[in-house]
């Protein structure tokens, strides 16, 4: 555990500057007050019931001093916070624009070249990015601690934030605005790539990924999709109950639905649950799963079903 998360964007060190200045000023006042408190409590402890104490009711010069000095410092902190905030709110004109959609409980990213990713945001090192964001259902908040960046997403309105990633690597995205049952699993990753790697991803990754993927056996591909497309956020494979039912021992067994009817979990049931989740909600769970129509292809769904079949 470190004191402060990694510094991975152009703005992160500026925000840290504000954090450190306030920390130092706070420490000065904290130490001053604590030392006086302890010192007085010991030095002036009651020695006898007849201790004589002076009749001191106040001091105007002191009141002025401890009003004016903190006021000046507070205004300086305000200004420093504001100056950095202004940078955070002023994206450069040449920033790459990516559309972010938050919905319960996943992130989708639409790129200028028509690419679309789920829960994984691909960006290039040292190239400014502007995220144009909206929510599909309730409030969400896009938060990348390593970038010191946070902005709420609203339904029916666009919000934005920008950053320049400075470090190659993978960084956490958290949803920071409470959004319901699956709020704590609404996490993603920012993948910052070198310009070369980004070029390859930008142009050919899909073909390459497709090629690699096609050669996998269906169940293994299903497992990969299960992990990459966020199924694992809500559905366990070890029988534990998360937001949704576990996949363990699901296939071929009877499932009791919200309306009291029972269905057998076969290929059609699973496929329908992925594409139209609200149509057959399992008893004891809430109708909260988003549809994966357009996110998973038919082949993907077949692979997921093959994977579920292996979870006995």
């Amino acid at each position, binding site marked *: 555990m470190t004191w402060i998360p990694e510094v991975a964007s152009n703005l992160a060190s500026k925000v840290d500057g504000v954090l450190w200045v306030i920390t130092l000023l706070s420490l000065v006042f904290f130490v001053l007050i604590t030392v006086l408190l302890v010192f007085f409590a010991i030095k002036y402890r009651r020695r006898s019931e007849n201790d004589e104490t002076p009749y001191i009711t106040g001091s105007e010069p002191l009141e002025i001093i401890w009003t004016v000095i903190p*006021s000046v410092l*507070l205004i300086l902190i305000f200004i420093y*916070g504001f100056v950095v905030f202004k940078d955070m709110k002023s994206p450069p004109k040449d920033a790459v624009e990516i559309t972010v959609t938050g919905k319960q409980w996943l992130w989708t990213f639409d790129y200028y070249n028509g690419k679309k990713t789920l829960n994984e945001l691909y960006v290039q090192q040292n190239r400014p990015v502007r995220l144009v964001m909206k929510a599909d259902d309730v409030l969400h908040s896009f938060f990348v601690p390593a970038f010191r960046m946070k902005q709420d997403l609203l339904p029916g309105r666009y919000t934005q934030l920008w950053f320049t990633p400075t470090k190659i690597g993978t960084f956490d995205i958290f949803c920071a605005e409470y959004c319901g049952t699956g709020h704590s699993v609404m996490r993603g990753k920012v993948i910052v790539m070198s310009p070369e790697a980004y070029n390859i991803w930008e142009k050919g990754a899909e073909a390459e990924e497709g090629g690699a993927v096609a050669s996998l056996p269906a169940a293994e591909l299903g497992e990969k999709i299960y992990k990459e497309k966020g199924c694992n956020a809500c559905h366990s494979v070890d029988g534990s109950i998360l*937001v949704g039912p576990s996949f363990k021992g699901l296939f071929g067994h009877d499932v009791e639905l919200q309306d009291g009817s029972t269905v057998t979990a076969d290929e059609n049931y699973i496929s329908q649950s992925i594409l139209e989740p609200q149509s057959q909600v399992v008893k004891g769970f809430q109708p909260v799963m988003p549809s994966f129509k357009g996110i998973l292809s038919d082949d993907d769904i077949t692979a997921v079903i093959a994977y579920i079949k292996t979870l006995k």
Partner: protein
Amino acid sequence: MANHTIAHNVYVPFLEKKGILSWLLTTDHKRIGIMYLVSISFFFVVAGILALLMRLELLTPASDIVSPHTYNVLFTLHGSLMVFFFIVPGLAASFGNFLIPLMIGAPDVAFPKLNLGSYWIYLLGTLIMLIALSKPADTGWTFYTPYSTTTDTDVVLLTFGVFVLGFSSILTGMNFIVTIHKMRAPGMTWHRLPLFIWASYATSILQLLATPVVGITLLLLITERTFGVGFFDPAKGGDPILFQNFFWFYSHPAVYIMIIPAMGVISEIIPVFARKPIFGYKAIAYSSLGIAFISFLVWAHHMFTSGISSLAATIFSFLTFLVAIPTAIKVFNWVATLYKGSIQLHSSMLYSLGFIFLFTIGGLTGLFLGALAADIHLHDTYFVVAHMHYVMIGGTVMGFLGALHFWYPKWFGKMFNETVAKIAWFLIFIGFNVTFFPQFFLGVEGMPRRYATYPPQFESLMSLSTYGSWILAIGMFVMAANLLVGLFRGEKAPQNPYNSLSLEWQVPSPPPHENFEEIPHVTDWTYGYGKKKESEA
């Protein structure tokens, strides 16, 4: 001060009458105070147990004790009960009721029946909330739209319960304002008033002016949920940020409804146990009013990342720093009161010094959240959770427990075991810090709040926080057991065990129903401790 040597009546303590109706139908402010005290303490315990369950779930990153939905219900109920049922009525309704008439030399509050009515309204709100527990809400205590209008849990009844509670708060505030204006004993001028009265006055103004706004907000929310009228839901032409503006317009001043009475309490305790006049009386008195006024103008600092304009964010950040000034002034004056005193570390004094220490941390960490750039990173993380609890537990609850230990002999006519009380204070102080201090680091690291499960990198600090909650719980248990045992086995309390000059200590413990046999004539302020110089005498 006042002179009560002539006995006209036989002394009958106000606790003498027995039977449930003697309580439910009483108009005695001291009995109403006790009913509030029992009610809020009950909710403090219940909401505290919910918090322990949450911390237990958070011991490990995975979801292993309760489901994520249940966890969300737990933090919703913990927050709602603590805020609306414990800490907002809190000190103001319990100790405010007990102390205001006694301290200003009055036989009761201005409207005793209305006072009882306020308590009944509180009970009614409680009943409505209990019904809502059949399908408890999972929105968080802030009820943010559009989630609160779309979740299928029972948001309507819970918010309606809070709506009803609001009337209790408004009427109590109004009652106290009139009492302080009209019922002061002869000679009890504004500048002789105990600082707890100044604090209660500022609090009452906030209750009266801010509570209607949350009432209307919750009513709009209920209307939207029930009839589908679009106020906040953008799908129906509403605006979710409007809800946040409304909600915080009340809920930020509400923070000061919660903390100002505690500031009043320690302004009473410190001079008594330092045997010194309070330092900077006027500065402390007027800073309460200053805080109350500015607190109406800072609400949007809860919304820097919500999508409000950068200009609005900048203005509210600036105003937020202004509210820190009167708060800092109070802290400096309390510390200065100790200078050259004769300090006795009575348990209530330990809570008061604990208040100054913890509230200072709570206040200073507020600067991080007020500064725009820093807040963007820290907002909605555990840093906010820690800051909030340092102010609410480190501040208000410390003040509440200090008040409980300080006025216990007066209120109940019994003494508690002082050694056990000190041990309990120590456990609470250590437990609190172990629970909440690590959360500042969690927040800086980026751990978001309201997470039922969390990434493994946060585990060590999260489990440390859980261990702390166990120490805190043990401390609270020892503290409560000690006070309860004292009620039955404690020695009889003398009239004025700490040699306080304040009026409430000049009547028997517990006070008679009518408080004063004869309305006292006040000739000096409450804080005339210490030896005056020749020229001042």
